[in-house]
């Protein structure tokens, strides 16, 4: 009986990764986040994984769903997105709920500044951003714009560059991403991106 079951299970899982016996072996769930995103989700520059602690639940959910649906993390130049997507692909709705609960339990601690730009120039550039993300970069759920203050600056740099280059936000189902792709052009170039993120570093929520 056991043999029959096992033979059957092997046939069905040759190309897959799951099998029925797995729950008996290791206690598992989908709470993998902190391996990459650092202790208490405070981000890890070493693997370029951003801060999750303090991220709004609605924004986290949308991004996990985008990764899972191949809306984000598919462009070959989006290295960090490509690293994220296979994990999100495996998530069920229940594990997304569980992860959001878990992330909400982490204390929000603003990230340290690691970049050297010109915040004064960045301040002027930020006025366009403030319309959606708020004057203190505190975010605005009704506009679908996440908080930027307190996020790792190296992550913001990468994402703004990705929006500008079309590595992020180019998927037809990513309407918020499309807005960002339009708006990011007001920053003009990498120097503009550096300056605006330097300004965001001065804000707190």
């Amino acid at each position, binding site marked *: 009986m056991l043999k029959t079951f096992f033979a059957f299970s092997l046939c069905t899982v040759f190309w897959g990764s*799951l099998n029925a016996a797995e729950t008996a072996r290791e206690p598992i769930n989908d709470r993998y986040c902190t391996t990459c995103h650092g*202790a208490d989700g405070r981000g890890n520059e070493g693997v370029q994984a951003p801060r999750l602690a303090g991220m709004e639940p609605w924004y986290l959910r949308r991004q996990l769903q985008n990764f899972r649906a191949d809306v984000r993390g598919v462009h070959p130049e989006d290295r960090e997105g490509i690293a994220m997507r296979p994990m*999100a*692909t495996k998530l069920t709705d229940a594990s997304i709920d569980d992860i959001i609960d878990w992330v909400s339990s982490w204390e929000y601690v603003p990230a340290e500044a690691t970049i050297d730009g010109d915040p004064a120039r960045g301040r002027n550039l930020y006025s366009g951003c403030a319309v959606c993300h708020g004057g203190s970069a505190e975010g605005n759920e009704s506009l679908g714009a996440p908080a930027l203050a307190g996020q790792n600056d190296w992550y913001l740099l990468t994402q703004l560059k990705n929006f500008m280059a079309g590595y992020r936000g180019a998927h037809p189902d990513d309407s918020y991403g499309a807005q960002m792709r339009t708006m990011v052009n007001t920053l003009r170039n990498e120097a503009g991106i550096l300056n605006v993120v330097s300004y965001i570093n001065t804000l707190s929520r």
Partner: protein
Amino acid sequence: MSKQVTRREFLNLISAAGGTAAALKAGSALGLLPNTAQAASLDLKAANASSRKIAILGAGLSGLTIAYELSKVGYDCTILEASHRPGGRIFTIRHGDLIDEIGNRQYCQFDDEPHMYFNAGAARIPSTHRNLLAYCKELDIDLEIFINENKTSYVQDDALLGGKPIRNIDYTTHTRGFLAELLAKSLDNAEMDQPFTDAEAETLMGIISSFGDLGEDHLYKGSFRAGYASGGFLKHGVQKDIIAFRDLLKTPMGRQLLNANEGDTGPVLLQARGGMDRIIQGFTNHVGHQIRYRSMVNAVQVKDDGVEISYDQDGSRHLLQADYCFNCIPSHLMTGISNNFPSQYINALKYIRRGTAYKAAFQAKQRFWEEEDIYGGISWMNNPSNQIWYPTAGIHKQKGILLGAYDYGNGELHTAMTQQQRIEAHLTDGEKIHPNYRNLVEKPITIAWHRMNHMLGCSARWERSRSGWTQEEEELYHHLQQPVNGRHYMIGDQVSMHSAWQESAVMSAQWALADMDQRLRVQVDE
């Protein structure tokens, strides 16, 4: 008349041809320079009652070395291990084992037999890695020989002879023959200008001739070294046809093939019988009770008189106070853990890049390679799967475990694929050597070290250029090797100049122990 060369001139000559390293080795052989060191012999001072608590972060080989040595002299060690298993990148996979890749969790389906295992990480021990071998001896680990270069294994390149695989022995015999013929010609032509005595020149020609199995005319006309086309035992052997040098030059694979038995992978290599994790078991037999599994470090705070570690286990947060801390958490993960390290120390942690090595394995339904005279060793392919390793475990049994891909330097290619894409790639690559491969193998597993939970990388990469260590890299390395406040040591092969070897992990741990011991002795003297 040729003039005699002095020993010093001979050294200079070798130095000009081979660089300083060649001169150092030759000098050692001539008894001018000291030989390399013996295995370290640690003579650690016994623990003192008021300062004996040790925290070890990570149950990899370096962490276990620390626990083993310090337990011997009375320290109270606690090992925090983030994953469900000890050993880190010394990982032998058997029936039922979890391969905890982020986003691609796998369970090994190999048959449950003692010889059906796969060394997904460390797999070879050079006989000169004395410190590791000393532990193998002390811990009674059963070792056996590992075969790296196998002359009957295959070489395959789509550009070579229409993609038809040839035997390693055909490639290497003919390539050596042609290289020797070139060398012999250059020696013949330049004989008068050579700074050798007649006797030396004669010896050199003899070596060249033997290297390539040249005829008396110093020409290569094929060799029985490549085996026989027919006969050879009860009848005279018939020599195989030569493969033209121009054809052999269609593949660049000689760079790997002629290097397989050199340097770190030169004979003799050893392995632990039954799987490399037998070494880890040797340590855990002594210190396994000290390991707290599924314990993820959250913060490391170095204090004046010790180190405070906060970690999560079973859904709650714990605090561990220690007098000393030895940390083999990968540098790129340590940067995501709260700490109060000095900024230059953090810069060093951030500087190291993570390795991308990738391996895959199949269970073979029958040991088809043994029917082709292959017992162990490596077949080389000029495609992304690159290597097939044949097991020495279980010779002449029904089944065996094959390594189906090994990409040390550029594993991101396969890492970025789905599991199904990876397996299809290895089947497509492998069937270029073994035509029925697809039907002969089953139960695949893949190990993308870049995505393994609690690892996210293979061996540390310090050097960013091929021209060697920069001064900045040297400084960061030496900074990271030094303890923070004399209390917190980073260890592991990442804190060595020769990462990816178990010996480096062991030696980094021994360096830290010796440093701590020296500091303690100074304190006592004061």
